């Protein structure tokens, strides 16, 4: 719809392009189902996270987050079994407000989340659609609770998040297509929170804590009588997701700034879902912390090296819940 109203650019066909369907998938009914990715991680194990800050020179702070897709278990097909998550966040400012803006004693925060047109299997338009605006509002809520706005009177900060590749809502081979019912958006939100939280710290804006995002979900599981709580669900790996939750979590204060719960969880289950999502956020936090400590050490302050940091090894952190 957004693409239709966009008259300024040459848009791709609205139907998008589809991956080739090979005859094998048609001849053998079971073949397509064979390609369905399986979750091989433990239920409480997160996917690996790559995070780097200060990647955009012109921005006052920036971060890039990537959750790579699982190595393909099926060498026979070219289509990646799951999607990966790639998010770039940049912080512009704090800068003086435009002349027309009224006086504000605190920092004005504005967040923009935009999917790149090529970010999902279904092509996105260039104009922000409802889902993107929704993500922007959620992200703003998550960040507002962490920034100390009083330190920056009369100024505004813009946080621009570009989703280069978004987690899809369901497996591509499923009937409903890869969009599912939008479960992937929760993963995207959690990634946005982690990336934007890192970019804010990179920009040197005062924060009460570090905010990180995490997702937990209840999935249908025949072996564990009905439902199973998994952290960091990759929607393609689960046939039926019952309910999922994304949070923005402050590690040292043990506070939650943002909750996005969807699906039919029930009251007590919602509690354990939020708990699980916070646990997943804890995992992203440990990556963030490692990245910033590495940055501080790289900046070569002598006193930092002989302190606790001297013993640190610059190795990748294996994420295991």
């Amino acid at each position: 719809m957004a693409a239709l109203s966009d008259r300024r650019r040459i848009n791709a066909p609205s139907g998008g392009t589809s991956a080739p369907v090979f005859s094998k998938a048609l001849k053998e009914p079971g073949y397509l189902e064979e390609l369905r990715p399986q979750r091989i991680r433990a239920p409480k194990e997160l996917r690996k996270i790559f995070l780097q800050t200060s990647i955009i020179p012109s921005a006052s702070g920036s971060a890039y987050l990537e959750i790579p897709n699982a190595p393909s278990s099926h060498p026979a097909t070219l289509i990646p079994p799951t999607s990966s998550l790639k998010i770039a966040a940049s912080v512009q400012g704090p800068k003086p407000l435009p002349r027309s803006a009224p006086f504000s004693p605190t920092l004005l925060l504005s967040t923009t989340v935009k999917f790149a047109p090529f970010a999902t299997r279904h092509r996105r338009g260039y104009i922000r659609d409802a889902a993107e605006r929704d993500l922007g509002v959620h992200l703003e809520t998550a960040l507002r609770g962490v920034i100390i706005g009083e330190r920056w009177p009369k100024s505004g900060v813009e946080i621009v998040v570009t989703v280069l590749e978004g987690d899809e809502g369901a497996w591509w081979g499923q009937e409903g297509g890869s969009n599912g019912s939008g479960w992937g958006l929760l993963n995207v939100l959690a990634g946005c929170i982690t990336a934007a939280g890192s970019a804010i710290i990179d920009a040197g804006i005062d924060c009460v804590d570090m905010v990180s995002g995490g997702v937990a979900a209840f999935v249908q599981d025949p072996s564990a009588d009905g439902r199973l709580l998994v952290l960091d669900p990759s929607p393609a790996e689960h046939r039926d997701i019952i309910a999922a939750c994304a949070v923005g979590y402050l590690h040292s204060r043990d506070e939650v700034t943002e909750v996005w719960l969807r699906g039919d969880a029930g009251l007590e289950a919602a509690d354990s879902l939020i708990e699980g999502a916070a646990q997943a956020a804890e995992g992203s936090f440990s990556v963030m912390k490692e990245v910033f400590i590495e940055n501080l050490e790289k900046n070569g302050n002598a006193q930092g090296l002989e302190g606790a940091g001297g013993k640190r090894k610059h190795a990748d952190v294996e994420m295991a819940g």
Partner: protein
Amino acid sequence: MPSTLPPYALPGTLLGPATKYLPGPGTHIHESHIYSSIAGNVRSTTSRAAPPPTPTNKPPTTNTPTTPSTPTPANNTKSKPLPLLTVSRDDAAEGQDTMGILGVGGGAGNPILPEVESIVLARVTRLGQRFASVEILVVGDSVCRESFQGMIRREDVRATEKDKVKIEESFRVGDLVRGVVISLGDQSNYYLSTAQNELGVVMAKSEAGNTMYPVSWKEFVDAKTGARERRKVAKPF
């Protein structure tokens, strides 16, 4: 409770109780403990030159919204000044070391805002009957990422004979002015004052376009043509 200070801190790192330290820039108080609010190196300065903490709370010590009431540690300042805790980003590494994927210098630089009483350098952009508009380029020792709009009102140009001040005999468009911020002002302008000997025009060009040098507290002289122009001159060093 850490007895010693960590060498560096991330936002939310506990630094110490508010009864033992004073919160400086880069920190905040939460439940009467001092926490870091940016990622950087921790420094603790036992105030030697710093004046005993006056109760005028500077912006860094303002409480966060989540800390409605915090006991200010100012009650025992008479006995011994508390060490001031600051967290600062390493400026030495700015520029060369921060190599981003897309190039050099990503995320570098301290974001700064003019505060009341900060000394700023500003360029005059427009003259009015009652004020001169300026753009603030430097705050303290650091260059701003973007310039801030400022305004010098006629009554703030000099300390004496305020009623006889004429804006066009004090500033010209393009002059570089050293001033002090007296108010955060309204929605668009910071209010500056030059009503001190050290404040005023520091660099000016004559109508002919040549650089001038100051000869008195109210005059500059063109080095080439010898023409005199009136300005509110900052005291030469």
